[in-house]
């Protein structure tokens, strides 16, 4: 049976073309031939689109059709993060070595058919691994056991992100040191929680008691993990989802990606590899070599706990938004079942 075509929403298509034309990324004869909302995205809604560019057509491709992603921040989105800042960071990254999609226009208005501001970017080739699915963990383990192309790329791109000129990074992303990062997520958690959680209360006190000596700040992805990368032909072809980026402590990225949750743990253990990609010691040694920044496992442990608390705060926000009937997105309710595992990770990280 042939798949049924998804109808293109005319208002969204018109807004998309207008924004691209304003940025010089589409022409008067361009047409949106496909537009579908994608699965991913908690605070952002993502749409896959295809747009014709007759002026750019050629042999075998008369319509000059290209694939794009629309990234929108709808009203009542999970986190109050700045889409404009994310667009600025993507713009900054155009001239850097980590692979990221080129951006093709930004519409800052809250009143759009996408229910809020949006920007357009190229759709890169590749697929984001889902580490909570065993076959995909097995694929990553096979890479580690053979060429290690994904592992090498993941660590090299992280070192490259942290090496981006600090002045340019500071101009694009909000500065957040350790203290401000802890404050931010604890504030979110306290405002959004519906029930008290003694493990989380203790974990914030534990993290605050372990504030590491500061290091030179740099661009921090903030949600760096293999699930936010695209894999194509055994290599990392794209790094996405910069919504949580900041100008801050690079060790946050190292700690956050070390969460067992990001290696596929849910109610049962996931991969024993860091982020389901590489052995932990190898990754940290390689990062230290490439970045010139030493890796202290105890500092990473602190940031791993902070990463767990960030996820806890985000999931708690989703639960609150759902309970208040501000969204019907059932994934927000599903997030409730992530919390026991994070609580388990926190008790282990704190050495209880």
């Amino acid at each position, binding site marked *: 049976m042939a798949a049924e075509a998804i109808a293109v929403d005319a208002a969204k298509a018109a807004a998309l073309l207008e924004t691209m034309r304003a940025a010089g990324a589409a022409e008067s004869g361009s047409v949106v031939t496909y537009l579908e909302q994608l699965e991913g995205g908690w605070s952002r809604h993502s749409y896959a689109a295809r747009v014709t560019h007759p002026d750019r057509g050629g042999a075998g491709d008369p319509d000059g059709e290209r694939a794009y992603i629309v990234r929108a921040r709808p009203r009542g989105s999970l986190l109050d993060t700045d889409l404009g800042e994310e667009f600025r960071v993507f713009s900054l990254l155009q001239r850097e070595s980590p692979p990221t999609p080129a951006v093709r226009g930004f519409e800052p208005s809250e009143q759009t058919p996408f229910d809020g501001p949006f920007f357009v970017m190229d759709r890169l080739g590749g697929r984001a691994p889902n580490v909570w699915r065993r076959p995909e963990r097995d694929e990553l383990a096979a890479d580690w056991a053979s060429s290690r192309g994904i592992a090498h790329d993941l660590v090299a791109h992280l070192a490259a992100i942290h090496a981006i000129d600090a002045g340019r990074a500071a101009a694009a992303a909000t500065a957040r040191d350790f203290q401000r990062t802890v404050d931010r997520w604890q504030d979110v958690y306290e405002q959004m*929680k519906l029930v008290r959680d003694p493990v989380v209360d203790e974990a914030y006190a534990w993290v605050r008691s372990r504030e590491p000596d500061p290091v030179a700040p740099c661009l921090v992805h903030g949600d760096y993990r293999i699930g936010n990368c695209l894999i194509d032909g055994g290599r990392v072809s794209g790094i996405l989802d910069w919504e949580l980026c900041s100008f801050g402590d690079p060790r946050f990225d190292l700690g956050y990606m070390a969460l067992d949750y990001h290696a596929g743990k849910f*109610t049962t253990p996931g991969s024993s590899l860091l982020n389901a990609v590489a052995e932990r010691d190898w990754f940290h040694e390689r990062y230290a070599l490439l970045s010139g920044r030493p890796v202290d496992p105890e500092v990473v442990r602190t940031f791993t706990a902070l990463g767990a608390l960030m996820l806890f705060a985000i999931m708690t926000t989703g639960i609150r938004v759902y309970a208040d009937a501000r969204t019907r997105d059932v994934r927000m309710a599903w997030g409730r*079942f992530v919390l026991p595992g994070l609580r388990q990770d926190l*008790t282990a990280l704190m050495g209880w």
Partner: protein
Amino acid sequence: MFNALTPPQLLAGVGRVLRASADADGALEDYQRSQVLSAYSVTRLLAGELQGADALRAWTRAALLDALAGDGRPPAVAAREQLADPAVGGVRIGELVADLLAALPRAGADPVRDAVRAILRELADREQAALAAPLDGGAR
């Protein structure tokens, strides 16, 4: 144990997804399919949680009462009094433990604090095991 959103709230949400899927015209978008799969996951996890809930609450209550036995400090006495009620709920137990840990001194060794933390760790392990356990009457 310390979980927001009640089973009725969760089931109502699952029902809305089912209704929206039944009402959808044409093929489901990627996003809509993910809603259906998430709803399925909610039902499966909620079933595991409910299956183990009573035993988990009873174990937690008993372990805390045991850890607090003989401690005459006011926060411990207050928590013990509340935990004496066999019907005390999971969310209320979370509040009591949070209040207790906040009131106990942080500096220096405290056997009661250590014991409560050990209980919380085992509780987390047991809760995870309950979510992963095979369901009565069917495979996961």
